[in-house]
């Protein structure tokens, strides 16, 4: 499998991009970030549809771009498979002609066999004679992936692969992409702003903001406990607060921080007493109890008052205050009903020290 190395600098109007990407052949790299952060621009630079002011792209031993040596292979010679967000099937061609568009003509037995393998894997053999305009969203998606795979690409780029599909189809598309990655062994870059998609499909992840990679790592690490505030903001970590370090306990691996009137215990970090730090915790990592629990392992138990209850994106959100200290908490609708939580009620919030993480600016 081919490793991929790319360094890209690009400027357009007020937007500047500078990224360094390294993947080994087995990687499925997630580019994660808000709209306008430069995700699709990176794909177009890799494809040769945009031209960087400075940069280099190497796949395996093949140099596709090196601005210092004035090497720039045109888009049609790069052999990079691309599945855009809205598929872009050719509307004037049948499914079969879309699939074979990038293949050499006439088709050899080898090519026909390879095409059969792809269409079987993607379960689109029955669609071959259909007009693309008659396909459903999920079918278009699979045809677009098959068309990109048919050129035997050295690198596969997927732009928001399941954003326009319903929830059930998303699951099946994710499974399919995983299966394709394992079967065809092509390094893959996936652009997404869907955390579930990043977790399901990525082996590596870059978080982008304003044309820069602000954090990298494995998706469960980056999305679970990011290191930087911009990353935490971009992945919607609901609770980010400033606190002062009051004690360190290396024996038990604990740091104690003061958040207004509360003493919050977090994992041990290399910081000094008196330092002001930012702490993050996901709303879904906080447990709610209506009575004060005893004999539990959670290091943080706080009495709070619920000031607001509303429907969030992934569940019911509770806004809670303990004096000036604020927490957003996410629970399920059934938990809300069972515990009969009302605005103004007193609750107890519980979370483990290890659920908290320190954020760098």
């Amino acid at each position, binding site marked *: 499998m081919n490793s991929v190395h790319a360094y890209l600098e690009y400027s357009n109007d007020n937007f500047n991009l500078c990224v360094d990407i390294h993947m080994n052949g087995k990687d499925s790299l997630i580019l994660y970030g808000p709209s306008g952060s430069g995700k699709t621009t990176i794909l177009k630079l890799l494809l040769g*549809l945009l031209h960087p002011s400075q940069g280099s792209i190497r796949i395996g031993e093949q140099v596709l771009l090196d601005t210092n040596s004035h090497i720039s292979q045109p888009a049609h010679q790069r052999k990079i498979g691309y599945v855009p967000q809205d598929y872009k099937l050719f509307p004037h061609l049948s499914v079969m002609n879309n699939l074979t568009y990038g293949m050499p003509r006439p088709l050899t037995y080898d090519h026909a066999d390879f095409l059969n393998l792809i269409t079987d894997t993607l379960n689109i053999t029955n669609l071959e004679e259909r007009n693309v305009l008659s396909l459903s969203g999920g079918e278009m998606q699979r045809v677009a992936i098959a068309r990109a795979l048919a050129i035997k690409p050295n690198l596969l780029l997927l732009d928001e692969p399941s954003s326009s599909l319903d929830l059930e189809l998303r699951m099946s598309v994710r499974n399919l992409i995983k299966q394709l990655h394992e079967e065809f062994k092509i390094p893959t870059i996936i652009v997404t702003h869907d955390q579930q998609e990043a977790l399901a499909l990525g082996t590596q992840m870059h978080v982008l903001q304003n044309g820069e990679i602000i954090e990298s790592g494995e998706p469960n690490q980056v999305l679970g406990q990011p290191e930087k505030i911009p990353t935490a903001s971009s992945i919607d970590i609901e609770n980010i607060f400033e606190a002062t370090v009051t004690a360190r306990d290396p024996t038990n691996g604990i740091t104690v921080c003061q958040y207004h009137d509360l003493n919050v215990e977090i994992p041990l970090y290399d910081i000094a007493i008196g330092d002001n730090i930012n702490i993050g915790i996901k709303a879904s990592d906080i447990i709610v109890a209506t009575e004060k629990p005893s004999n539990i392992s959670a290091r943080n138990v706080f009495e709070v008052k619920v000031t607001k209850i509303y429907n969030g994106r992934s569940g019911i959100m509770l806004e809670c205050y303990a004096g000036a200290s604020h927490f957003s908490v996410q629970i399920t609708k059934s938990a809300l009903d069972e515990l009969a939580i009302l605005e103004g009620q007193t609750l107890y919030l519980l979370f483990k020290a290890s659920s908290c993480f320190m954020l760098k600016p």
Partner: protein
Amino acid sequence: MIKGKAIQQNPAKPSHALGALIIIVYVFFIGLPLLALIIKTASSGSLLNVLFSSTTLQAIKLSIITSLISIIIIVIIGTPVAYIISRSDSKILKILDIFIELPIILPPIVAGVAMLMAFGRQGILGGTLEQLGITIPFTTTAVIFAQIFVSAPFYIRSARISFGAIDKDLEDLSRTLGKSPWHTFWNITIPLTWTGLTTGIALSWARSLSEFGATLMFAGNMIGETQTMPLGIMTAMETDLNTALNLSLVLLMISVIILLGIHFLSSKFSRTRV
């Protein structure tokens, strides 16, 4: 039992009736002169005699050949011009686009005078061309020049709008699939803009066939050399109304045949494209 459905239908709204009336008036306005031409020509009873007279045959032949050459040149030159303008953000090309469309609003007779001033014996390039032994005014070449000058903008405008309307991402995607810009142009761009291009060809060709003012000024009215059908009609009107009528009907029929032929080709291509 189904009941009440038919009764519940809304009565025709006054705006519908007004719309229908306007359409009828317009169709009558366009149709009546054409119908009058057909009736008067038929009643003259001399269609075949006129059709096979040598003057008429020469005018028909000249009109068809010159307009065919003009449209071929217009498509060859106009297609890349329209494509480049549609794909460019250059302000210079945007200004050029307005300039290219200028002949649409320019009175044809002014176009003829302008071409004389450029290519005529007293024109800017006239002296140079004469030294090279090239004479353009009052030749069949001048007929073609006048037709191209006047009718090219109709094709370029239609082609530019068509190229601008297609999804550029499809062209990009074709390139990512290993196809060169040339292959992409022929296999993605042209098929997706086919209807617009053929409409442009039909408009432009029809305009070439009916070209009169610029041709008269720049090419003259010489039988067999520069007398196209519109000029033949004008000449006949001065002496023999029947000949003018018959020539007019023939020109009308040729225009309709071209229009229908292109429409047929366009729809056939659209249907068989998958």
